[in-house]
């Protein structure tokens, strides 16, 4: 009979039931026992484990004070003498996913305990952390909360008990890029021909090599003399003219809006809004220059710090963006800017 595994569960402000986006700046906290999704986690652990405490933090606070937040949260965790940290699942929420990944990585390194995070495979946190921690693929929406927690619990218990871990698709975690030798029944040439025949027949086959997800991009050459530079302002923070005439979406964007600013010297609160479901837009609605720094860019242009400010701001609401759509939106904006002779871009991101 194994001893009962002591589990600490990490949640963001939303799942810890503190509040929604407006509480994103809540600092680290701890409560004994499970909260919110922690109850389903406890059920999944059954007799083998116990959620001894829940630690939590606002997503914005974590993103802006990462080192300090991790220190405090790990101290809360360490005081409960855990064997395992479970983080999330964060689904497609980017800041939450990054936080789950970072806290798991820190728990492994500093507390030397097992850790499992849960999030969608397209979550930016998965890209950042999948090689160093175990991440269970939750899919993008909360619909898979319970099955995800069950997989996280099973995997976490195995890790904490030092049991052998199976392949990614058997256990439901994202491939960590680890290569392990194993005996195959057929040599590579025969396996490759089998796959090719299956492909030609239209049957299912599984490649042994996963293609990379991010194509990567070559950074542009640095701007030399700014006196000839044409600078454009772009944002993923959802700036729109009053009424949102292009009807850009506040999340899961499929398009962007083009805002004329040739005769505008500052972004007045009564003429512009921010439309974005991923952050609290109160401050940027109060003064949209906090999102797109038009007022100071105009002044710097008049002072001759650079040649010209481009006459349009391009904007999209970048919350929960699918990688394919985001790539296309970026390419379309870049194409327009290049055609217009823009030489540099300042992109403000929320």
């Amino acid at each position: 009979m194994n001893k009962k595994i002591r589990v600490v569960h990490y949640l963001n402000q939303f799942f810890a039931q503190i509040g929604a986006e407006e509480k994103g700046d809540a600092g680290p906290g701890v409560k004994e026992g499970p909260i919110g999704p922690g109850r389903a986690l406890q059920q999944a652990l059954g007799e083998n484990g116990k959620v001894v405490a829940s630690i939590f933090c606002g997503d914005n606070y974590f993103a802006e004070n990462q080192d300090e937040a991790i220190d405090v949260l790990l101290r809360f965790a360490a005081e409960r003498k855990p064997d395992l940290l479970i983080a999330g699942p964060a689904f497609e929420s980017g800041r939450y996913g990054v936080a789950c990944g970072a806290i798991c990585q820190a728990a492994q390194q500093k507390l030397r305990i097992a850790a499992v995070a849960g999030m969608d495979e397209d979550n930016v946190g998965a890209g950042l952390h999948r090689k160093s921690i175990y991440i269970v693929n939750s899919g993008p929406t909360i619909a898979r909360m319970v099955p995800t927690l069950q997989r996280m619990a099973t995997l976490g218990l195995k890790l904490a008990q030092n049991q052998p871990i199976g392949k990614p698709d058997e256990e439901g975690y994202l491939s960590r890029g680890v290569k392990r030798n194993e005996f195959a029944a057929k040599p590579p040439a025969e396996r490759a021909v089998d796959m090719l025949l299956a492909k030609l027949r239209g049957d299912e086959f599984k490649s042994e090599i996963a293609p990379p997800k991010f194509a990567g991009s070559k950074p542009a050459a640095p701007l030399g003399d700014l006196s000839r530079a044409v600078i454009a302002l772009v944002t993923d923070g959802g700036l729109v003219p009053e009424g949102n005439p292009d009807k850009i979406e506040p999340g899961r964007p499929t398009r962007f809006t083009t805002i004329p600013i040739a005769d505008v010297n500052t972004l007045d609160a009564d003429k512009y809004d921010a439309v974005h479901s991923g952050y609290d837009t109160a401050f940027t609605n109060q003064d949209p220059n906090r999102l797109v720094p038009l007022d100071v860019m105009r002044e710097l242009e008049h002072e001759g710090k650079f040649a010209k400010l481009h006459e349009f701001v391009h904007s999209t609401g970048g919350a929960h963006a699918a990688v394919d759509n985001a790539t296309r939106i970026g390419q379309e904006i870049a194409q327009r800017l290049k055609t217009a002779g823009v030489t540099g871009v300042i992109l403000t991101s929320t």
Partner: protein
Amino acid sequence: MIPVAKEVGSLRAIASGGIVSPTGNPELPQEKEKQFRRELVLRALKTLQQEV
């Protein structure tokens, strides 16, 4: 969110005023906040001139 920018290949990235006010700081008085924004933008312009 600098690690996120770098992860997707955006190498010229500087820390902003925060997620809810990238080019502002609502805690500062208006003039100081504008000064903060001006300095941030000047840093961004300098970053555009740097080799990465």
